[in-house]
Structures are given as C-alpha cells and as structure tokens.
C-alpha cells in the first residue's frame, strides 16, 4: 500500500501555555478530500495551522510526501506544496487580483502566465476583474481570489479553513462548485467547514475533533453516517 501523502501522528500543539491539540492522528491519501469537523474550540484551525507551519507542534510527527515537516517554518512548508487558504484569507488588499494571483506563484517565478490564464478561466469573475484592487471586491469574490492564489502555487495539498464562512448563500453554492471542481482535478484537500452539508458534498472522508483529539472518522462514500449522526457526534 502506498504511503499516505500526509501522516500526522501524536501531534500536540497550542499557544504559549495553553495546549489545544493532545495527540492528533490522521492520514490523507493522494487525491483524497478530508473534512475536519468539530465544535468551536475543538482544535480544527490549530490542527490546520500546525500542518502549514504557522503553529509549531510541541510533540508528534507530521510526514508529508515522505519527509518530516513538523516544526518547519511556513515558507518551507509552502515550498513543499502545502498551501493554506486561511479563514482571514490573507489577501493583499491594495494589490490587483492579478498581482495577488501572481504572488501565489512567487516561488516558481517564471512560467506562470498559463497558470494565471487557467485560474481566470476557472474563475470567470476574477478574469473580468484582473486589474481591480482586491479591497473593492465582495467577500465571496475575495474567497475566490484566495483559492485562485493557492492554485497558482500548484498545491500538492490544499488546506481550506472555512471556505464558506461568512459568505452570502449565493456564494456558498459557488464555493461548493469550485471545491467539487478541484476535487475532480484530483487535488488533495483538507477542509475545515461548519456547513456540514457542504462538507459532505465534497469530502470523501471526515474526521471529528473533540477536545484536541480525533474522536471519530467516517468514510462518506459508504453512506454509513447521515448529517444528523455527524451533528450529534460533534456536539453531544
């Protein structure tokens, strides 16, 4: 059996003296979409930030593509192909859509025009607003820029932290369609999502975090767990 793309084993992490993760274990295979679910404060964002290097783990191992990455700085992890779209989106508001997208391919430097055209084709709204400063766009459009910028980096693993968070319903549908399209292209994703219906539409598998540990995991494809079962598992 081939080695999973990402393997987290006994990961412990937190902020200063406050420990959030208490031995998190999970794997993600190539091409798989995994949703990380859990109540507020269960450690979902901390787990994602630990994988992307923004939070340094105090114990445990994170192996990615055969290499240990636990404790590496974010820019090194980015260069290895793990790209995160954070909840705050971390866009550069005064820059145009195009310049934000170009920054996503910063580490490659050259040969990015084809990727730029591909992203603008996948997200026609961005194509129409290439020269518009990002700060003048709606929340949904900014989310598209953030995802488009991540794609410019040709991610091996895309981390999405609440991609539908704070968006109008019309944009939630668009984001769902985008995520489904990315899955269709074989992009491996780890998603945090409060919208369980959206998560189940896209994910192959979900993990439930409780008190900083993986409490349960289900394969969506077997149909063993309904949306109601999952909500009950998260909150009860």
């Amino acid at each position, binding site marked *: 059996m081939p080695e999973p793309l990402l393997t987290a084993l006994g990961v412990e992490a937190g902020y200063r003296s406050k420990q959030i993760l208490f031995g998190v274990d999970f794997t993600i295979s190539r091409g798989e979409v995994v949703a990380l679910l859990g109540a507020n404060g269960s450690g979902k964002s901390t787990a994602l930030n630990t994988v992307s290097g923004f939070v340094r783990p105090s114990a445990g191992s994170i192996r990615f593509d055969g290499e240990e990455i636990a404790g590496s700085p974010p820019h090194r992890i980015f260069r290895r192909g793990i790209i995160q779209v954070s909840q705050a989106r971390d866009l550069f508001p005064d820059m145009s859509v195009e310049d934000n997208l170009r*920054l996503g391919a910063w580490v490659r430097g050259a040969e990015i025009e084809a990727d730029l055209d591909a992203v603008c084709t996948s997200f026609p709204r961005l194509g129409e607003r290439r020269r518009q400063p990002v700060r003048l766009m709606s929340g949904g459009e900014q989310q598209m820029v953030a995802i488009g910028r991540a794609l410019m*980096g040709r991610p091996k693993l895309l981390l999405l932290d609440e991609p539908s968070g704070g968006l109008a319903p019309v944009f939630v549908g668009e984001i769902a369609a985008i995520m489904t399209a990315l899955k269709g292209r074989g992009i491996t994703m780890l998603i945090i999502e409060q919208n369980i219906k959206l998560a189940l539409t896209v994910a192959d598998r979900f993990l439930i975090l409780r008190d900083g540990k993986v409490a349960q995991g289900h394969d969506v494809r077997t149909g063993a767990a309904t949306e109601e079962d999952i909500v009950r598992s998260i909150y009860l």
Partner: protein
Amino acid sequence: MQRSASDGAARAVVSRRVLWIVPILLLPLPLLLNPYQQYVINLVLVYVPVAIGFNVVVGNLGLLAFSNVAFFGIGAYTAGILMVRLGLPWWVAVPPAALMGAVAGCAASVPALRGVRLFYLAIMTLAFGELMRWVYIRWIPVTGGSFGMALPPPDLFGWSLDSEAGKFYVFLGLVLVAIIATDRILRSRFGRAFVAIKSDELAAAAMGVPTNRYITLGFAWGGAVVGVGGAMYAALIGHLSPPAFDLTELILEFAIIMVGGLGSLVGSVIGAVIITAAPEFFHELPGYQELLFGILIVLVILFLPRGLASLLARAHPLFRDRYDRG
C-alpha cells in the same frame, strides 16, 4: 469583447510615455531664470532622489526607518572625500556615493530584519543618522570636522559644471535615471514583494516571499538613490559640514514624502518641489515665512492625508501609482 490585461498594460506604457514631455519642457529653463532661481530649481532636483529613496523604505516597504539623513550625508561625504582627498572628478565620485549609500542601507536594515518595527525602528535608525554626524565631526583628517570641507567645482568628463545651468542638465539626467529605475523596480516582482511585505509580512512569508531579503534590497536601493542625492548636494553647495545632516534635515525630508504622498513616486517629486521651493517663494513675505510654510504642511496633511499626489491621481489615471488607493 473583453480587453486583455496585456492590451491594458501596453496602453498604460504608451500613455506613461507622455510624461516624457515634462523633462523636455524643463530643458529651456536655464534661459528663463536668473542664477538664484536656477539654484533653487537645482536644490529641488537634489531633493527628488532624496525623497524617492526615503519613500521606497517608508512608503513602499512600510517601515518607519529614519536613517535617510544618514544615507544623504554618507553620499555627500563619499563624493566630497573622493574629490578632496583623492582628487577624483565629481562624476567619478557619484557611483561610489550610490554604492556607499546602498551599503549604509543594508546596515540600517539590520534592526528591521531582527523584527524591530514602528517607533522602536524609528528611534534606532534615527540614532544611525546621529552616529554618522558624530563621525563627520570627529573624523577631522578626512571630513574636516565641524568646520567642514570645501569642495572643488564639479565637472563632467572634464566639462566644468561651475554654472547653475550646467549642474541643472546633469542633475536632470540623474533624476530621470533615478525616477525611471525606481519606477521599473516598483512595477516589477520587487515592487509586488514590497507591497506584500507592507500589507501583511506574515502572509507574504507564507507565500514563499523571502521577506528579509526584500527588506534589505529595499533599504539598499533607497540608500543608493539617496546617496546619489547626497553627491548632487555636494556638487551644488560646494561645501560639506555636519549641521547640514541633522535632525532638522530629517524632518524636512519626512515632510517632503508626507506632503507629496507616502508610497508614491509622483508624490516624491511633487513633495520635493513644494517643500524645497515654497520657502523661497515666502521670502517675499518676511516674518511670515515659517508660519506660512507650517500652515501649508498642516493643511495638506489635514485635507489630503495621502498627499498632493492623490490630487493628481484623482485628476488623471496617468499619475496613479501601481498600488494607489485612489
């Protein structure tokens, strides 16, 4: 039909070429002005690169570093020392002045690389300028100490620049090179990195941008351009002494970029023109000179917080900088 980004960029380049008319219109200026007025125009030209370099660090990189007066002094003294102590012609001394300005820029970036920001960075870099002033005063055999150093008349390939008109044409050339080179840099990958660092340094690092390298490069470029301004100052004034590079000078340079527009290349030029030339116009009103100058600065900062450049940017897109919020 949707216009492609490359069409838009080509149109922008064509329309920006219209700006070449400005230096062309300036060419007959020496024929129209008396020597004093010509001196004032030359002083404005000296402050254009000084403001451009300062604005790259403060306005484009977003780092509150007050080392500009150190770069200015280092550029001026490098040119002066090479002319007086080694007998080199002025034009030969200009590239070393830029180089020493760049080296000083790299040195001044060290606190920023260690994560020092805001007022702490301002104070540390301010100390750099004061330290250099101490060097100018104490290193008497080389700098002439408090009495300063009288410089020989500048020349260009043996052609004497004794007249204000001669200096004007050489200064205009240097200023054009500084503007075009800085514009190219700010519109390139470097410029994008600067703006990303200013906007969100952590997010820029997360995109793989080597932020420390670009902070050093920004300081080095700023230092080099200001160093050229220093060499021009040495040629214009003909005498270097430590008081010319004190805190008042720094405040004047800061006023130039604030009034012109932070992060704006156009603003650096406008600020240099207004702040350098305005006191000369107020000479006609003795006793009110400082008052009127102060009121001008306060009015601009109150009503145009993004500087005079924002007025021009509103009037025509040609004057908009790439990341203008206009």
